[in-house]
């Protein structure tokens, strides 16, 4: 029997007070209800030490408190001890989150209901909560100012200056047919006043949560049922999704933004936040009252929207991927590991659409042609093939929905045109009327139609699929024929110039349309994945499917727009094929990277294709690869690649191997028992590596198991018939892409902590086993005490062992041994759709988050410190950047078929000319590629500038930085991530 103490009484009284308020104050009581009736759920609270156990149950409009946690409690909060429980009473929601992240409070069960519970608390706390948040905000701003305290307005000016004195191209690529100076050096954003205005708006507007999508969808489902239709028959999931989608598209507000030459928006709000209650949207429940005041990425939410979402969320609380898995698989062990966010994290619970759809199909053929094909397929079916018929019918319904939306946009354009007094704008609106009347139903005839068709179908895809990492792919290839044709029809230089300027504005407008919706970021994600947005990856360059140079006029136009706007999203990726693409093109990529500080990311076609050849033997398909989300590889338009399915913290496996399967921070013996250091169980380095491999396999097996369950949930909860119309194979197989309809079916993993693990293994191997300079016990003791008692050992592990990135062949071998192990673990599994897992070494922002959740390591990295990002060597590896480049280039591509992120900071000298900077960057990248390197990306900035930006964010709203694979605005990052960027390895230019 546990001994309860005064905290038990205290918690009991607090919950009683809460219950009484909800029972007796009608203004509060009404929140216990939604359109579905009373919201019934129960929350348990307990300490791990057994000093407290209570529960609160909301049932039929009444709240009551129990002195025990009922067996079927929807969610339980476990506090690791009394102190943590006491602390939570005094702190802001934001600090509470920190405790959850640090595993001081452990959450089990349905997070949506915990959100509801938090929301109820915020209702009671009212203004006090707001004041606490205001105070926390001020403190946060102050602490950032104090961290480094630099204030030099000159820094911000230096960044602005980069936009001037632009280089000119010195050769013309074979694919460039029209541009005289492919670098378009004469243009800056100043030449495009409307774009400039919209660009400023983008940075100044606070995003607003949009209720349009969740409200319309939930309306439909409430009317027509989710599991069963209104007649009580079980729904075919594809049909249900298709009808709901069609309803949404028909009723969605058709918006044409002022001055926009592209019709349609994802949200009616100027800068909207898309909400997907059908996956993870309910995570925001607890923040409905506080999101506008939170420290990081606050967004506005109207009273009406908050009310609507609070009404909608109960409908979805039990229909999320996580809830479904828990319900159908009895809250499995793999889910419990995942929910601690320490060893792994599954993203399928948020989205499955990290892929590159076949946009050319919408643009070049049009939806009517697809409908025609679907109808042919249906005709060919045997009568008993009703599943296939349903699947195909659902695809057709979705396409009809998309067309209905385009028709509404056409109507809107006409209405606006009729009212418009400015003749130029009137003409534009009339053109939009004609455009939307024609596409995406029919093949696009002009570039304006092509871009509008691409965007309108994109809106459809985003209404169906969560806006995470769905990527348009190779837009330069898609748009070039239209550009060439129209340019070719013009005769005078003036006409051509005018048209070119129109195209730059059109593409800028397309970028801004993409950038103007934000994704919904629960505060926890600010800390786990700070600053990440939709990760809409656009890819340029490389080769065509038949192997020719793919760099063309549109490549350079897209790069110009990238340079002018410096947006974090779309996420720009550039392919480079050695021997085919020109140095002029690669230099331009470097120049854009320099001007924007952080984009594009550059990929070596040879290494990528070699890596991915294990998943496809069709060279034309490999040549048509495009980046997805951050850096990942998708074979365009025929590959359901869910490239960001799951992340694994490789350091957790190392810690578990050092502790016989126990994870210290989780305080949980979850892994297999593989040996005790203190018992001398490891006689050789290989003995230890076997233990380490067993722990990695354990974590990977669990994360795969969960991901496969999530895929099963997805196929039931949220099949994607519209996406299925534009990924080859699904129509032909009459199978939704969530069920394996695509030609290629893989799931992507990204594995974090590469350098930290390699360097740690090197320390163990060299110092303990090869050189026997220290005992394993002594090393283990030093780690357990965070090296506090042993500075000389701490110095020794840093200085006497060669690290990955130092030019040591032995460390490179160790890295390949590690990547080979991880690759092997994944390849021994299959995903839900029968495909393989792909293996990547990039880290989004989780090298920081996982770092805070990991103890000291043999490498000398101290507890809580960030890992090196992606596949980047640790800053201490070498003072010579070339050592870094060479070592990363030697990573075996066959172990990395989901790509890597190699990310360093370059610091230009104050007097370096632009030519010198660009030429040096070019040389680094080209040589890295020649040596076999797969991917590289730079932050071209001095740490002092970042410090200044941390203290004076108002001067740096537009400052782009690359985290690991994605871009973010530096000033919107959490403090830990800002510091990590400041401390990241840097090399002079």
């Amino acid at each position, binding site marked *: 029997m546990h001994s309860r103490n005064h905290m038990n009484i205290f918690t009991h009284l607090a919950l009683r007070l809460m219950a009484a308020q909800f029972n007796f104050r009608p203004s509060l009581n009404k929140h216990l209800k939604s359109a579905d009736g009373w919201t019934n759920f129960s929350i348990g609270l307990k300490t791990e030490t057994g000093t407290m156990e209570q529960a609160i149950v909301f049932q039929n409009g009444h709240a009551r408190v129990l002195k025990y946690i009922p067996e079927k409690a929807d969610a339980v909060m476990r506090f690791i001890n009394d102190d943590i429980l006491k602390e939570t009473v005094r702190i802001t929601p934001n600090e509470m989150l920190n405790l959850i992240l640090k595993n001081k409070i452990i959450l089990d069960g349905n997070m949506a209901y915990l959100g509801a519970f938090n929301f109820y608390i915020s209702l009671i706390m009212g203004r006090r909560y707001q004041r606490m948040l205001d105070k926390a905000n001020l403190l946060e701003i102050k602490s950032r100012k104090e961290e480094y305290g630099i204030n030099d307005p000159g820094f911000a000016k230096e960044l602005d200056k980069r936009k001037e004195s632009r280089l000119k191209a010195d050769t013309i690529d074979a694919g460039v047919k029209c541009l005289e100076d492919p670098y378009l050096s004469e243009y800056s954003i100043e030449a495009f006043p409307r774009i400039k205005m919209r660009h400023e708006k983008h940075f100044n507007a606070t995003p607003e949560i949009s209720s349009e999508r969740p409200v319309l969808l939930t309306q439909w489902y409430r009317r027509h049922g989710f599991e069963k239709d209104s007649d009580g028959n079980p729904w075919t999931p594809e049909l249900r999704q298709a009808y709901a989608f069609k309803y949404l598209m028909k009723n969605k507000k058709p918006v044409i933004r002022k001055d926009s030459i592209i019709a349609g928006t994802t949200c009616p709000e100027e800068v909207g936040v898309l909400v997907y209650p059908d996956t993870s949207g309910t995570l925001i429940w607890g923040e409905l009252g506080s999101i506008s005041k939170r420290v990081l990425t606050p967004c506005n939410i109207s009273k009406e929207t908050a009310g609507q979402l609070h009404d909608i969320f109960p409908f979805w609380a039990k229909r999320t991927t996580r809830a479904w898995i828990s319900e159908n698989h009895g809250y499995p062990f793999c889910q419990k590991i995942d929910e601690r966010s320490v060893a792994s994290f599954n993203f399928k619970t948020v989205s499955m659409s990290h892929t590159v759809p076949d946009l050319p199909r919408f643009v070049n053929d049009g939806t009517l042609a697809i409908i025609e094909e679907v109808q042919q397929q249906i005709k060919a079916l045997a009568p008993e093939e009703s599943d296939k018929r349903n699947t195909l019918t659902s695809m057709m319904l979705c396409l009809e929905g998309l067309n209905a939306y385009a028709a509404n946009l056409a109507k809107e354009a006409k209405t606006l045109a009729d009212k418009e007094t400015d003749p130029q704008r009137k003409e534009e609106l009339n053109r939009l009327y004609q455009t939307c009347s024609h596409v995406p139903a029919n093949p696009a005839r002009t570039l304006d139609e092509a871009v509008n068709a691409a965007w309108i179908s994109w809106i459809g895809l985003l209404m169906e699929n969560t806006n995470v990492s769905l990527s348009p792919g190779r837009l330069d290839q898609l748009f070039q024929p239209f550009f060439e044709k129209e340019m070719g029809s013009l005769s005078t230089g003036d006409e051509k110039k005018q048209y070119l300027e129109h195209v730059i504005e059109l593409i800028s407008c397309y970028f801004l349309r993409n950038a103007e919706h934000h994704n919904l970021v629960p505060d926890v994600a600010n800390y786990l994945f700070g600053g990440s947005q939709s990760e809409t990856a656009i890819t340029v360059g490389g080769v065509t499917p038949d192997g020719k140079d793919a760099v063309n006029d549109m490549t350079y136009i897209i790069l110009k727009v990238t340079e002018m706007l410096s947006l974090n999203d779309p996420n720009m990726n550039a392919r480079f094929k050695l021997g085919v693409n020109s140095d002029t093109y690669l230099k331009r990529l470097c120049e854009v990277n320099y001007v924007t500080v952080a984009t594009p990311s550059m990929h070596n076609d040879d290494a990528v294709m070699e890596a991915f050849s294990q998943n496809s033997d069709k060279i034309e398909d490999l040549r048509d690869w495009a980046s997805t989300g951050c850096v990942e590889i998708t074979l365009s338009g025929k590959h359901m690649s869910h490239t960001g399915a799951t992340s694994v913290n490789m350091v957790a496996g190392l810690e578990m191997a050092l502790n016989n399967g126990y994870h210290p921070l989780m305080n949980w013996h979850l892994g297999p028992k593989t040996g005790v250091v203190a018992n001398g169980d490891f006689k050789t380095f290989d003995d230890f590596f076997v233990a380490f491999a067993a722990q990695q396999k354990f974590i990977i097996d669990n994360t795969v198991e969960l991901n496969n369950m999530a895929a099963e949930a997805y196929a039931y909860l949220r099949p994607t018939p519209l996406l299925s119309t534009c990924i080859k194979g699904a129509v032909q197989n009459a199978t939704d892409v969530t069920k394996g309809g695509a030609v290629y079916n893989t799931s992507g993993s990204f594995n974090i902590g590469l350098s930290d693990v390699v360097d740690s293994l090197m320390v163990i191997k060299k110092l303990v086993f090869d050189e026997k300079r220290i005992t394993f016990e002594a090393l283990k003791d030093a780690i357990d005490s965070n090296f506090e008692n042993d*500075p*000389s*050992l*701490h*110095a*020794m592990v*840093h*200085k*006497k062992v060669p690290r990955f990135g130092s*030019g040591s062949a032995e460390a490179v071998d160790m890295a390949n041994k590690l990547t080979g192990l991880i690759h092997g673990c994944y390849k021994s599994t299959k995903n839900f759709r029968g495909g393989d897992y792909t293996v990547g070494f990039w880290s989004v922002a989780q090298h920081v988050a996982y770092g805070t959740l990991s103890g000291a390591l043999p490498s000398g990295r101290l507890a809580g410190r960030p890992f090196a990002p992606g596949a980047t060597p640790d800053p201490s590896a070498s003072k*010579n*950047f*070339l*050592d870094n480049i*060479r070592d990363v280039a030697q990573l075996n591509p066959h172990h990395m078929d989901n790509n890597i992120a190699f990310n360093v900071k370059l610091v230009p*000298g104050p*007097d370096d*000319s632009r030519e*010198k900077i660009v*030429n*040096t960057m*070019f*040389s*680094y990248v*080209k*040589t890295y590629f*020649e*040596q076999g390197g797969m991917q590289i990306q730079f932050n071209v900035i001095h740490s002092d500038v970042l410090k200044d930006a941390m203290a004076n964010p108002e001067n740096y709203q537009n400052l782009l930085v690359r985290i690991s694979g994605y871009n973010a605005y530096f000033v919107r990052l959490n403090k830990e991530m800002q510091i990590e960027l400041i401390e990241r390895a840097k*090399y*002079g*230019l």
Partner: protein
Amino acid sequence: MKKTLILELKGNSLDDGPGIRSVVFFKGCPLSCIWCHNPESKKTGVEISFEPNECVGCNTCLGTCTKNALSKENPFFIDRTLCNLCFECVTNCPSNALERVGHEMNVPEIVETVLKDKPFFDTSKGGVTFSGGEPTLDMDFLGKTAKALKENGVHVLIETCGQFNYEKFNELVYPHVDLIYFDIKIMDSSHHKKYCGLPNKTILENFRTLYRRYLDGGTEVLPRTPLIPDITDTKENLLAIVSLYKEEQVKKTQLMAYHPLWRDKNLKLGISLPSTSEGKMGEWMATERTKACEKIFTDAGIALEP
């Protein structure tokens, strides 16, 4: 095989000639400029250095030194009159606070090491720079190394103080070099002797000869002047340099602004700072001062390399 003493092979240098370069620093120099930026390269023999900021105070070294040369009381930590350079302490120091300065290397070792960077030379039009110390101290060695690199298609540059035997240079080194950075420091020979230890006669003769050969289609020579406050950057000295350049039809030069980073390096090697290292010699050179020096050259129609 014959070895010579190398201070450091530094890769990825962006400021020692065109493109990305590897710099071979030789140890030892015939001059002894009081402001020398690489004091660790002055002496010809190996040395031991101590970096207090790296020391974690574990005292391991105290136990390993049989000569009792180490003491925390000693401001330089190492008593170099007692130390016999056995480097036992260096091997055992966990933090590399104690380090050996100078390593014997032969030609193939140097060539093999720097050739690893060749792919970067090729994409950046860079190469190898021989610096020091004074690379021409061992002409035979320098010539052989340069030749081996040239045979591997590497661009070779030497940075020299100009104090060498011309005949030997011409025979052993000149054929294997693509570019010569030639220091012209002080025109007044007695000043030169005072600040650099030797008169400048040989240096100026060598410069004139090499420059004339350059103008006749020989290897390119770029004269360079370090701007040392009140020593080389006086108007008088700079004007004297300008007139030398006029005589020799020099169209281009490079000026290197003074920085005081060498002072800490001296301390690491147990060398007390000379009294002249205070005042202006303790600071980075102000931009206005550099600009004024530059103007003397540009006014005379001599361009400046960045």
